């Protein structure tokens, strides 16, 4: 195997995969996108100047790959083809809760659902900051944003999540 691939896989694969999974909420798609990240990385590795850290560079590519996939998904064809399960002639749920989360406490399941209410930027920041545990500075570097933009986006995202969580918990409480 390629030595660059080996090294990157060893150091970052699970992080990048997890980021993509939380972004697209679909295991198969996350697997494809993780591969796409490697393809872009291996092509561009010689251009990597070391201006940013390897980790934030990789996350910035993963973020672009995820955003590109959202853009592609917006096409009506994909929407129909992917959402329609031809074998059962039924619209299937694109985002079933993954086993790892379904087995956990309800709160985690709710958070997983509530992520859908965030904008793409907000979701990226939440995943990078809390789930991947990147610092504000690292997140800003990966997104080529100012740190203050990261902070505001994080702030707004938490507000959205809190509101949606509150509603979900109240609904459950009333059952």
């Amino acid at each position, binding site marked *: *195997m*390629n030595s660059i*691939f*080996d090294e990157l*896989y060893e150091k970052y*694969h*699970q992080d990048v*995969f*997890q980021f993509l*999974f*939380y972004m697209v909420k679909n295991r198969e798609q*996350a*697997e494809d996108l*993780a*591969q796409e990240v*490697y*393809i872009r990385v*291996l*092509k561009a590795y010689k251009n990597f100047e070391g201006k940013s850290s390897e980790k934030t560079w990789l996350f910035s590519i993963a973020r672009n790959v995820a955003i590109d996939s959202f*853009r592609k998904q917006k096409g009506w064809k994909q929407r129909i083809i992917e959402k329609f399960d031809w074998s059962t002639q039924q619209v299937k749920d694109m985002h079933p809760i*993954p086993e*790892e*989360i379904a087995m*956990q406490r309800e*709160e*985690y399941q709710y*958070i*997983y659902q509530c992520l859908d209410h965030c*904008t*793409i*930027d907000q979701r990226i920041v*939440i995943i990078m900051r*809390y*789930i991947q*545990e990147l610092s504000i500075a690292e997140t800003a570097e990966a997104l*080529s944003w*100012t*740190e*203050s*933009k990261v*902070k*505001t*986006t994080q702030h707004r995202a*938490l507000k959205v*999540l*809190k509101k949606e*969580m*509150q509603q979900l*918990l*109240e609904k459950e*409480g009333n059952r």
Partner: protein
Amino acid sequence: MKKISDEQLEEWLREMPKLKDHRDPHDIYENISKKLEERPRKTWIIPSFATAAAVLLVAILSFNLFDGASVNHSADKSLKEEAAIEQKTSLQKEESSVENEARTDVGNEENSTEMNDITFQATEDSTTAVYAEDLGAMQVFTLAIPDSEGQNIIPVSLLVETTDLSDKLSRLEEAMASMDEEEWGLGDYYPLEADLAVDEASSTLNVDVFANHPYQFGSTTQVIFENAIQQLLNSLQLNQAIFTTNKIEKGITLSNDVLTSITKTEPRNRPFYLFYTNDIPYLVPYSESYSTIEEAFEAMKTNIDTHNLRAPLLVDQISEVAIDETNKSVVITFNKEINIEDTPETTQSIEAILLTVKSFGYEKVKFNNAPIDYVGRFALQEEIQVPIAANKKSID
């Protein structure tokens, strides 16, 4: 039900389960190498396929549009031949009726070229700006929105149905809250993290921010913020903005200074360029201003690569610019050998010229030496009114 605290939420987020990829790295590497190998081939097959399809489509469409009449002629002819061979009375009857129809078609031939023009106008409107005729009872609000890189500031004009003009600010705030800048390929900027209030008597917009407001870091942030406020003053037709922090302190801290107020200034004499994001076209003024239209057009011949701004077509073919101050109009003469194609990019380039002219304070444009009559909705042989505002968007 107890309220969720920020700390609680953050704790849950940190504890979210780890999601792992269970594939063997060897399999992943194999998949990647396969893709790396097959890539170059794919990249040219699809575009050339698309090109072929597009050429075919254009051929079919233009054949129908231009040759509508002659198609009828040949159909008529072949029908006649068939009829001659078969010699059937019923067919002859049919033929004569077809012939009659064909004749009326021929009679209308003069009109039919006109018809083609109308079809052209109706087929697709690739204009981006707001024109007087689009307005109806709607009101235009223009907002300054940064692109996703924060490099360009794009004036985006919202058409808002309004009955009550005194309530402009709340309509504008509603619009700010409901629009999705990212869907438009731009940076998420609105609603502003500030309390806005209008004081009609002193023609003032009061802007109050928290001490930890997000507009204080970086000079770009400051430029964007000031632009956003300027554009608000223009949209709300107010003369000045006064800033406060935490409702009591005068002024607002920005990266370079403390700003207490700004007065309305309209950016003038700006060149407009094409800017594409997510395949959506925008017309964007560059921050430099020029003293004459000629100089602005001269500058517009070259792309501004640092800002991803593309030079409009046609400007490099302008041979002369004449200004009629009394009529507030500009006559633009193209080189004689100019070739103009009716494409969306040409339409948007014409808009860039119109908006530049508008930025210099003129109202009408007349083009000389245009080899075709129409580009999109623009009748090139007639005087064209400049748009009301750039980059039209509607919100639900």
